[in-house]
Each structure stands twice: as structure tokens, then as C-alpha cells.
């Protein structure tokens, strides 16, 4: 239908031509060096052997009764109930405290202040000895279990600066990438392994892959990592959990 105000000239837009998309990765990937090839073949052989052992007849496992599996709705109800349970004790706690303070007020005798001061001294002394004991225990725990808060903060601060968060990731998805590192005493990385690496090439997991790659880049960019100067044995294996939700939610 021709319209009086329309441009008489035909629309001269560049033609929309379908574009061929050809995967050329296989063609252009750089071939492995002969030495590396041998190593890869060895690894493959080992993997095959592993596969053979995996194909052994499966154990006979007793089938669980389907009745034992709770329905999703029931599960949700249970979670809600648990939450309610958590809230109640807090309320009770407050109430108990208020009553005890009130009782204290009633028991307060202004003529007996000196005795109170003396007691408070004893209490503080007791407290300090107690806290001292706790810190010694903490140090023991740190030396055998984990990094101290300052050591952890230093490492975190370093990685925060190296990690370019992919801003296109959805903020509402539960995305967590766990990377296990083997470190040298100077903090440089011997090896890095993505713990859920099977997700990397699964269809529909493109966000996971992007996040995992960004996390690996952060580790590579940051190394040598800021690790403590002592206690190599306790941190030579380290796991970093990359979670971008907080940042993406803004």
C-alpha cells in the first residue's frame, strides 16, 4: 500500500546475508611437541586402564524405598520449620537477659559498692586469664589448621585486585568456582585444578565456564601469591572459592 508521505526511494540498506560460521579450532590448533605427545599417550593409556577397572560389575546395592524420599513440598516445609525454630530461641534469650538485668537491679545495694568493685576486679582478672588461654589455643589452631585472619586478609586483598569479574554473569544464579592450588614455598603456583571441572564443558553451563576461566586468570595474574613466610606444610595445598554474587548484585 503506498502512502503519501513515505519516501519514494526504495530503502537502501545493506543486504542481510547469512554469514557462514565455521569452527576452525581443530584445523588451526598448534600440534603437540613429540615429547608432549608421548606423555599424553601415557596419560590416556592410564585413563583407559582406569576406565576398564570402572567397568567392573557394579556392586549390588539395596534399592532404597521410594517412600523414604520426601516430596519437594515437604522439604520446603521442613526448612521453614527449622527457620522458625531458630528464631524462637533468640527471642527467649533476650527475654531471659532482660529478666536477669531486672533482678540485678533489685538486688543492687548502694552500701555494698566496695564489695562489688572487689568482685569486678576478680572477674576481670579471671576473664583476662581465660581470654589468654583462648588466644593461645587459637594460635595452636592456626598453626595446625588454617591461616590467621591477617594472613587470609592479605591473600584475599591480593586476589581481589587480580580478579576481573565477568559482569555479564547473572546475579541470581548460584555460581561458585572452587579451585585447588598446589603452591611452592614462595607462593608461586605449581598446579591449579578446578574441582567441578566436569561442569566446564557441559551444555547450559556457559556462565560457570566463564567464571572458572576468570578465576584461573586471576590466580595466574596474581602469582606468586601472598602466603605466610612460615608453615609451608599447612598451606602448600590451598582451596580458593570464587563467588561473584555479592559483587554482581551491586
Amino acid at each position, binding site marked *: 500500500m503506498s502512502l503519501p508521505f513515505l519516501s519514494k526511494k526504495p530503502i537502501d540498506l545493506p543486504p542481510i546475508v547469512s554469514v*557462514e560460521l565455521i*569452527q576452525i579450532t581443530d584445523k588451526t590448533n598448534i600440534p603437540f611437541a613429540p615429547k608432549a605427545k608421548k606423555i599424553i599417550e601415557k596419560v590416556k593409556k592410564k585413563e583407559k586402564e582406569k576406565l576398564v577397572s570402572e567397568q567392573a560389575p557394579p556392586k549390588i546395592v539395596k534399592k532404597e524405598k521410594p517412600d523414604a524420599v520426601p516430596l519437594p513440598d515437604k522439604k520446603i516445609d521442613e526448612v521453614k520449620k527449622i527457620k522458625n525454630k531458630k528464631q524462637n530461641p533468640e527471642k527467649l534469650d533476650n527475654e531471659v537477659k532482660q529478666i536477669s538485668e531486672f533482678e540485678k537491679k533489685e538486688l543492687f545495694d548502694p552500701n555494698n559498692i566496695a564489695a562489688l568493685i572487689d568482685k569486678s576486679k576478680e572477674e576481670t582478672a579471671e576473664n583476662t586469664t581465660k581470654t589468654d588461654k583462648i588466644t593461645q589455643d587459637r594460635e595452636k589452631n592456626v598453626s595446625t589448621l*588454617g591461616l590467621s585472619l591477617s594472613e587470609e586478609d592479605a591473600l584475599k586483598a591480593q*586476589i581481589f585486585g587480580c580478579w576481573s569479574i565477568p*559482569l555479564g554473569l547473572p546475579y541470581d544464579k548460584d555460581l561458585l568456582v572452587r579451585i585447588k592450588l598446589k603452591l611452592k614455598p614462595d607462593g608461586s603456583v605449581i598446579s591449579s585444578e578446578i574441582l567441578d571441572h566436569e561442569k566446564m564443558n557441559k551444555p547450559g553451563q*556457559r556462565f560457570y565456564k566463564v567464571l572458572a576461566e576468570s578465576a584461573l586468570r586471576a590466580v595466574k595474574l596474581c602469582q606468586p601469591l601472598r602466603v605466610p613466610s612460615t608453615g609451608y606444610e599447612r598451606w602448600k595445598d590451598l582451596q580458593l572459592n570464587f563467588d561473584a554474587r555479592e559483587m554482581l548484585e551491586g
Partner: protein
Amino acid sequence: MLFRFLFFLIILFPFKAFALIEVDITRGNLSPLPLAVSPLSIDSKSKEGFKKILNKKDVGSEISKIISNNLKQSGLFNPLNKDAFLQKPDIAHLKPRFEDWALIKAQALVTGKVSLIEGKLRVEFRLWDVLAGKEMMALAFTTVPNNWRRVGHIITDKVYERLTGEKGYFDTRIIYVAEEGPKVKRVKKLAIMDQDGYNNKYLTLGNELVLTPRFSPTNQMVTYLSYFRNMPRVYLLDIETGIQEVVGDFPGMTFAPRFSPDGKKIIMSFATDGNSDIYTMDLENRVVERITNHPSIDTSPSYSPDGKYITFNSDRSKYQQIYVMKNDGTNVKRISFGNGLYGTPVWSPRGDLIAFTKLHKGKFYIGVMRTDGSGERLLTENFYQEAPSWSPNGRVLIFYRETKTNSKGEGFSTKLWSIDLTGYNERLVETKTDASDPSWSSLLSN
């Protein structure tokens, strides 16, 4: 005996087992990712060929400029200056020296090759992870030489998707109303351009007023409103063929026709007996269906991407606010509760947000909120701005902004602007004339 010895050894020297230390990394760097876009290499024979066909000295460099510019405009990438590149483009494309690229702080690298084969343009490109020292992606495209700009946009979309995880928005077009002349006597034409402002074309002559062009989410169809003999008319225009048709003449004030997500219906508001309500029209059988029936003014409807819900603005609660309802008009819920007036709600193609214009204390804001009205965020503030339209990936909004006139009535202009969801990446979209009412197309290569 040996058993006892081992037992004693274990007692005397117990194994010290350390639990694996876990550190949670919950914060990172939000600055743009530094990357290098190496000029695409081209052999001398192809260079000569393209010079004759396209009148371009080096089409390889031109394509890499498009990629680089697109990535920079996105605000998520920082393309490095090519003067700092140490490796030649042809060698880098075969085997990059990753140390050289890491030295200039590039975390990713784009290389490529352009050739002229049997009169066609063939572009091969690869994306490399510099720090991991590996290839992330490799693709080749073949098309007619005139499509060279589109190839640049398609490569950008691929790079963007691989590095961010979400689809790109570069191989797209924007339809808008081009405006010229003084404020009281404006000439308004329908115009279309690539998202980066190139290939601008006018689609109407400007004899009649044109308003609110909107792209179909499924194809290259556009619906818009125009006045013919002072009567509002809704038109359909096929961008690919240039064929247009009148959808219908509507009574009274008709506003903002917009497509349904499947492109089979248009939804709009028009007034009967002075009461503005929302209606849909089936484009196959032209059957009009009334969706709202309320004495208030209901306008600016927009479908959710699944087509199940509609958002619109209404003054049914005294002041103009945003509402969401089911696609049959039931279950109407108000979702905006902040101070000020809310209008032009548009549902994001991702489905998670609704963009809107807000007027509060004499200032206009473009903002977003979740579809239940929570999490309201105002992205930009100005003297006058409105009509946000989403990029197809739901990351960027395009809208128009007017400037104040001086006491003599001079200085009026309207320009297109874009802003991303972070609110930091605000950019002027270059147009040849003044511009308003933009609408973003879906990806052309889909």
C-alpha cells in the same frame, strides 16, 4: 615382628594431617578487562582487491577498529593501544608470543586474517587467553564484501559472549525518530542506523508526524504511529523488503504500539469516550481485544519475554504508577511505590527487570526495578529524558534526552543516550540530526 615395628613407628611419629585451607573470594575488580585487538592481517593481493571493491586501504585494520570500538563502548573491556603491540598481526594470528601480550597487561587477545576468495570476503579470527596461553575460540566467516562492518559486529558479539557469558548486542540496528528544525516546527522522520551510528537511512520524508517506532523481537519488522489527515494510524514496516501496511486507524489518542514477544500481536493503548485503556490486535486476523477496562488512564503496555504478563502505567491510584497484570488483564498489581511519577515501563528481554522513566521534584530519571517492584535503581538523572529501550541482551538501555532552551527559546536539542545496568557507562549515541524515541532491534545474525 615387622608389624610391631610399624606399630611403634606410628605411635612415635604420628602423621600430621592438615585440613585443606579454604579461602572465600567474594570480591573482585570491576574495571574493564584489558584486551588487545590485533589488526587483522591481509595479504597484498586481497588488499588490492578490497581497495577496488570497497575503496578501503586496509579492510583488516578497519574491521579490527570496529571490534575495538564496540568492546570499548560496552564499558566491560579496555582495548589496549595498538602502538604498544610487539608482535606482527600475521605472526600473532599463527602463534602468539603470550609473554609479549602479558607484558602490556593484555588478558585476552583477538587476532585474525582477511582474504578475498572468489569475490567474497573471508574473515578468520581467534580469541586467545593470554594468561592461560591457550586458544579460546576460532571461527571463520564468509560473506559479500559490502558486509564488512557487520562482520566486525558479529566478531565482537562472539568475543563478548565468550568472555562475559551473555550474548552480545553489536550486530543490531536502532530505529528512531530523526528531528530537525525549530522546536515549534519540528520535522520528524523515521530513521534507522547500526547500533554504532553507521549506515544511517531515513525511511520517511517527514511530511507527516511519526512517533514511537518499535522493533519486533523476532524479525526486522517495525511498528510505528503516524498521523494521516490528523488521525492516528498504526503502521507495519518490513525493513528487509521496504513493504509497509496500515494496521488500522484508531480513535482518539493512540499511544505506543509494541509487539508481543512472538511478533504475532501488537499491544497499545487508545482512548474511547475519553477513557484510555489497553488493547491488543492480532496481526493475522486484525481482531482487537480489550485488556484493561478502568476509568483511569492506562498506557505504555509492554509484554514480559514469555508473553504471560504485561506491565503498563496507570493513574488508577491517583498518581501515575507502574502495574503488572496477566496477559488477559486479570490480577493487576501495582509494583512502583516510590516518590514521584512512574511511566514508560519496558520489560527486559532477560525477564528479570523493568526499565522505567521517573519524574520526581522536576527531574527525570531512567531506572530499573525487579518485576515485583523491589530493588529500584535510578541509573541516570537529567532535565528531561524518557523512553528507555533495551538492548537484546538486557544489559544496556537506549533513551533520549532533551536540553533546556534559553530565554530566547534557543538551544533546544534531543539526543540519544545509552547507559548500562551498572549506571556508570553512560554514552552519547551519535546521530546526524537530533533524535528521539529509539528502539533496539534483536540480533540480526540470529
